[in-house]
């Protein structure tokens, strides 16, 4: 019923997909956090027009299932890119865009909407009294941000940002739909060759759990180290 003999071989094969999965997750995490921060600032500072666009973006990307966004990107992005480049006179075959790039873009687009909510919440949790104090002492807005606000906002956002990292890891398994081979897809492929599906997926579960454990530990420690200071 459960074949223990294949576990080691399965583990070796599926582990092979871990580096690429982590690399994609990290890239998505960094990009979506940057874009999310930008969105959060637009909302926090109440920038006219841009603010409405950000709100519309968030409604769209939080509401539409990620797998649909991935398919839309898969079918829509290359022709759109090719068209845009042809407008500026560049002849480029965008259909050669690797699928993993499309996957990274699609998930980044979705997660950015969530990151922006997290960062907006952290910004709102900053008490404006400290901003008053800084201004009263002659701090410019950028000095206030650098010296006082940023260090506090980061600490406030760490737990939720970590959760996003795990959401990204799991969202990457949707890459299977457009033939990107990460942890889940690799288990699928491994199982398809030896027909030991249960074993392969158990291995995948264990790997996901180990990654989740490590990420949470890193985040907890970083947060604790920083929180003592605030």
């Amino acid at each position, binding site marked *: 019923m459960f074949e223990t003999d294949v576990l080691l071989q399965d583990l070796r094969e599926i582990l092979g997909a871990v580096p690429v999965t982590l690399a994609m997750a990290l890239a998505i995490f960094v990009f979506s956090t940057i874009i999310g921060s930008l969105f959060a600032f637009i909302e926090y500072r109440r920038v006219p027009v841009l603010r409405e666009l950000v709100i519309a973006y968030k409604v769209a990307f939080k509401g539409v299932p990620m797998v649909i966004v991935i398919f839309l990107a898969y079918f829509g992005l290359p022709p759109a890119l090719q068209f845009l480049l042809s407008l500026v006179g560049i002849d480029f075959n965008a259909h050669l865009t690797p699928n993993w790039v499309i996957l990274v873009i699609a998930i980044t687009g979705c997660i950015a909407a969530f990151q922006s909510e997290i960062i907006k919440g952290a910004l709102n949790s900053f008490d404006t009294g400290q901003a008053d104090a800084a201004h009263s002492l002659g701090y410019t807005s950028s*000095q206030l941000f650098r010296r006082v606000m940023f260090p506090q906002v980061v*600490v406030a956002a760490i737990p939720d940002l970590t959760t996003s990292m795990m959401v990204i890891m799991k969202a990457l398994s949707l890459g299977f739909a457009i033939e990107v081979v990460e942890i889940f897809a690799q288990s699928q492929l491994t199982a398809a060759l030896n027909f030991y599906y249960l074993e392969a997926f158990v291995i995948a579960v264990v790997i996901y759990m180990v990654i989740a454990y490590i990420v949470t530990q890193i985040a907890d420690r970083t947060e604790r180290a920083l929180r003592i200071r*605030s």
Partner: protein
Amino acid sequence: MLELKDIKLSYGSAQILNGVNLSVKRGDVVSIIGPSGTGKTTLLKCINYLARPASGTIAFDQIRMDYQRADKAAVQAIRLRTAMVFQQFNVFKNMTVIQNVMDPLVVVQRKSREEAHAIALQELERVGLSDKREHYPSQLSGGQLQRTGIARALAVRPDVILFDEPTSSLDPELVGEVLKVIKDVTSSGITSLLVTHEMQFAKNISNRIVFMDRGVVAADGSPTEIFDTPSSPRLAQFLSSELAFQ
């Protein structure tokens, strides 16, 4: 040295300041008293432009500004010569006590770390917090937080120090230690404006009392004039209710 003229400010339809005039001489210790919601704090915050009046003018020595045409340079010049102590302390939560005091000196005044450190130590000594200098705000009592706020304000060597209800959010048993420090500061000759509900304290330390009521200055005089011979029924009523409460 400081003159505010015809300051008007409203939040939405609520008129907070309704043409306030106030002039302060160098070395004055002015206490601003009055019922809640009459704009005492708001008036104080107009001086360093944390509150933005719709109209009126300010003259701070050579610096002159019309609030209808507020300009950044004048605001910054005034901020560099004043310091404020807040009701909610507003110390920087990501910094230790001594970092709180040093930071404005390093970031705004561009002093060297060594010089800033020396000044900070001196001011912390003055407010009795030398032994807590490496503590973070989360580890301090309200009284200690407020004394940190006072040390931070003193360290920038302001010409005028603005106290905005510095003891109003303290536990009763912590009020004393903060009032003691404020008394020490005001008696050192620095020009001070103090918004407070501590009537006895105001009477003791001030050379002038300003009574604000419904968005205007309703009475202005020496402590004796204000407390012993109140000029209006409103003032007399306010004083008796405040003093009865204490």
